[in-house]
């Protein structure tokens, strides 16, 4: 079983549209995981029917028992996150500011503070329109620990893939270079970088690839909207060569991607021509590279 993770650094390069296309093409060969838990969009193209839902508890937040609290203020003194304030003569925790370190609870002389586990989101196992399994999640608003939810979604997908002897786990990663991306990358066998030839797309590609290098994972690259700026496309191709990243394909700017999305379809279902062939060939190439 091989794990393929699709990431982009920059948002909006077409990562999810491309990943969903791979998921449709792979069909029963793969288990699919949407690890962009902050902004999970893949279900919009895969029309999953949820078979199992589970709450995800992670991290703790301070709660003050007002009956026991004597308003001594030790908690305020030790909190480095400015999360506890005296409001109307009651010490109150601002949930969004609390990091869950528990320092306040440990030093409260009256033991008035409890650290309470947080339900930060839900995760699901679903059957998609092409009858493969999608593991996905919804993170609560402002929740911490999205990295941990990413790890959960990915592990569940891996377990399912091993149990049912699938060849691949296809993972839609998140944007950026922080904890959710680090979580998406750990344990991957191959990374697909989806970029676009804009100064920012290229800039973010270089940054996220620095991270991929730290994990020593083999990578390939899709240049989406490649005809928007030939010059930058050439620069990206040179960069790929110098870093020994496989250049999988150039995909032209085409509003059919958006049209497909408005019908809840992937490009390989909506388009019957060149775009579809490009993506189909990309998937073949990725399978060979992996």
């Amino acid at each position, binding site marked *: 079983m091989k794990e393929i993770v699709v990431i982009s650094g920059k*948002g909006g390069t077409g990562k999810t549209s491309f990943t969903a296309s791979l998921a449709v093409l792979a069909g029963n060969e793969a288990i699919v995981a949407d690890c962009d838990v902050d*902004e999970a969009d893949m279900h919009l193209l895969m029309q999953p029917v949820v078979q199992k839902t589970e709450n995800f508890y992670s991290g703790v937040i301070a709660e003050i028992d007002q009956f026991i609290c004597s308003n001594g203020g030790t908690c305020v003194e030790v909190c480095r996150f400015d999360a506890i304030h005296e409001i109307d003569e009651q010490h109150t925790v601002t949930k969004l500011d609390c990091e869950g370190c528990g*320092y306040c609870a*440990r030093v409260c002389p009256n033991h008035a503070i409890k650290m309470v586990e947080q339900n930060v989101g839900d995760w699901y196992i679903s059957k998609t329109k092409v009858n493969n399994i999608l593991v996905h999640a919804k993170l609560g608003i402002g929740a911490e620990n999205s990295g941990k939810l990413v790890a959960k979604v990915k592990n569940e997908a891996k377990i399912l893939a091993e149990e049912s002897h699938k060849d691949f786990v296809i993972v839609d990663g998140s944007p950026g270079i922080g904890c959710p991306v680090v979580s998406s990358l750990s344990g991957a066998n191959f990374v697909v970088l989806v970029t676009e030839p*804009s*100064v*920012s797309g290229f800039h973010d590609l270089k940054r996220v690839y620095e991270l991929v290098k730290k994990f020593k994972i083999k990578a390939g690259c899709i240049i989406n909207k490649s005809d*928007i700026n030939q010059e930058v496309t050439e620069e990206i191709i040179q960069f790929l060569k110098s870093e020994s990243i496989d250049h999988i394909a150039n995909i032209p700017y085409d509003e059919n991607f958006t049209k497909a999305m*408005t019908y809840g379809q992937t490009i390989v279902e909506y388009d019957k021509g060149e775009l579809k062939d490009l993506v189909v060939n990309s998937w073949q190439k990725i399978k060979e590279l992996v």
Partner: protein
Amino acid sequence: MKVAIASGKGGTGKTTLSTNLAAFLAETQQIVLADLDVEEPNSGLFIKADLQSEEVRYKMIPEWEEESCTLCGKCQEVCNFHAVIRLGDQILVFPELCHSCYACSELCPCSSLPMTKIRMGMTHQYKKENLTFIESRLDIGQEQAVPLISQTKTSIDEGFGSDVIKICDSPPGTSCPVIEATKDVDFVILVTEPTPFGLHDLKLAVETVKELGKDFGVVINRYGIGNDDVIKYCNENNIPIMAKIPNDRKIAELYSKGKLIYTELPEVKQELQKIKEHILNIYNELNK
């Protein structure tokens, strides 16, 4: 006055709007533009200004002092993030897991874990005429964006009064980095695109700003592609649509070269003017 430009979904045009709006507003007044998307800061690719200052940013982590340590294990017990562990006769600190809460350091009975600073990124400040541009950049391999965003905001608040309009290019998503970037602003502009992904992520972003109790409006980018569902949603929920930036391949091309678009496309400038009026109304209310 602080305005956050946020989006939920990545790639909807946050940076395009932040940079163009800041440059446009700076034609007539003093403006601070802050790139708080510290994981992937891009505004600097579009703003050409002169470097004024640079500063290395640090976070605080505990450092083990072997001589005084009795290996009692209190540090491991009090760390909720598993960033300090006792392994045999050693105490190990994992800086990327540390949230700088100071609990291990201050609760250590032997004071064997003094806090020390460790680099997490850099802040650069640039200036051109009325526009001050501040960019913070997280070092690669650092996982936590929040402390860097928080420090950057503090230095902006200290450097510029509330009479200056500050525009904050925020990170995508709905989790901790975007909360940190937007929790103390006066107004949030949510940038979206009229597609199913755009609408889905806009709804999450709206939930987030409502949770934060912020006043907000929507700017639709790439207007003309996709469908009308975003407009319907905004109308049904009484969310003001502040402007519609047209879908135009020319914009994508200018953007790809790192150029501002409003100087070349009058129809974009017209939309920025609408946003400007909206912002100035709020500004006048706040500074009454």
